[in-house]
């Protein structure tokens, strides 16, 4: 079942509709309910390779529904430590649980100060209100 609309506290958000869960010098990244809802049921996830470097504000992968393709934009820079194989196998996991089981990658942060540029949940909600 697709998840109901939500934007959890405790996550940081990026204007390209990505979220980050900061865990020390690592972060888990994914896409928000808003992005998932716009795409519809995901049918494909094209992840980066483990060990690859990603740069803030640049695309690191792609998600696809039947009718649309979207770049997934990195909210933070880092080295890819793990790719969520569950989502590669079953992309609709992101629709069901975008912030939990539907995480996309985990990275080791290379520029931790970038976290300060991200939005907290109120700022993101208000950004969404302007869309």
């Amino acid at each position, binding site marked *: 079942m697709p998840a109901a609309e939500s934007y959890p506290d405790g996550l940081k958000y990026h204007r390209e509709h990505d979220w980050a869960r900061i865990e020390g010098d690592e972060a888990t990244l994914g896409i928000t309910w808003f992005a998932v809802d716009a795409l519809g049921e995901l049918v*494909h996830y094209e992840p980066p390779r483990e060990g690859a470097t990603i740069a803030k504000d640049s695309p690191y992968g792609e998600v*696809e*529904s*039947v*009718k*649309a*393709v979207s770049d997934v934009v990195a909210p933070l820079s880092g080295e890819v430590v793990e790719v969520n194989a569950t989502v590669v196998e079953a992309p609709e996991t992101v629709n069901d649980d975008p912030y939990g089981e539907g995480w996309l990658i985990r990275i080791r942060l290379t520029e931790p100060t970038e976290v300060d540029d991200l939005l907290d949940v109120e700022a993101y909600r208000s950004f969404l209100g302007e869309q």
Partner: protein
Amino acid sequence: MSHLSLTERDRSEMLAAIGVDSIEELFVDIPETLRLRRPLALEPALSEPELVRHLEELAGRNVHTGRELSFLGAGMYDHYVPAVVDALLARGEFLTAYTPYQPEMSQGVLQAIFEYQTVICELTGMDVTNASGYDGTTVAADACYLAKGTTGRSKVVVTEATSPQVRQVVKTYAPGFGLEVIEVPHRDGVTDPEELRSAAEGAACVVFQHPNFFGCLEPAPELAAAANDAGALPVAHVDPLSLGVLEAPGAYGCALAIGEGQGAGNPLSYGGPHYGFLAAKTEYTRRMPGRIIGETTDVDGRRGYVLTLQTREQHIRREKATSNITTNQTLLALAGLTYLSWLGPDGLREVGETCMALAEYAKERLDLPLAFPQQATFKEFAVAVGRPAREVIRAARAQGVHPGYALGRDYAELDDALLVAVTEKRTPEDIDRLAEVLGP
């Protein structure tokens, strides 16, 4: 004008509904400076009988295969197109439908393309193919683009024994694709796997035609292995009519199989329209250009067919699409499906064997030295005629026989070589006549 249903009364009612007095008012947004205020400088309209007469006059000045005994091949072949292909075209639905974006309106076309995809995969030993490419030359460019996207490499290798037009089209597309094209020369009418192996170092793909432009059978499994050794995708350019007797590229290590479909179900038609095919192993599915039809079910569980994996294509992925192709060659491909269904597996094997048997008979009867005597051939072979082949062709045509293609048009060192094609439409008597005309 017979295509327009508009009467004067219709016109006035419609203008009234729009709220204008004349059609001219509908063009007010076009600046006067851009209005063409004279009639188009075109010849006066022809009524239907006059039109037919004019086209008959033009057609009458073409020497077609009904007027001349022809052994011309070199990429396009006078194979028999069965009457049942006309049954496909007799109904206007296939002829006049467009791309099946609304699948509920187009289940017939969609299922037919799915069946076509199946037969192409069966012929080539591959897992996926598209709903057709433009022709046998552009699919080679498609294959190179796919290989570059997959491997990240920018060099492509093509054998010199591959059709000159295929090579020329690849070279035309290459600058825009950012590709470097390397050719591997033929050695006595075929390609040397060792030479290919060195050339393929760092290449995205290797394209080789088999049977090649000279009609010779290449050491295809070794060429594929040489490409694979170098990490380059082996791409075999194959003749569908040969695939009843020759091994499927998918069975000897090729990543892609491409080719020209004309011989399988389309008339010659002075070079087009025809259909090209590009088939691949399953791992290349997401990089395939062109439309792909997939099976699914509807809300009631009924089986049905839809365009699938559309996110590869231009209407969704736009500038990052696997290709810009939209309109393809569907109707010609469906003629191909009809033809291959008419043949069946035994018929396909038989047509290949018949061509080979007749070609062998021709080699004996012509009593001319073969240009590549060491090589096995399929339905075409090159003979050395002792003087520029162009002159031999001219002399033979004066006697009502077109003896074949002058290889000197594309290969300077083969100016005296004539490429003779023998299809199942030729008879031993036809070949005897050719021998007579080319004789001493």
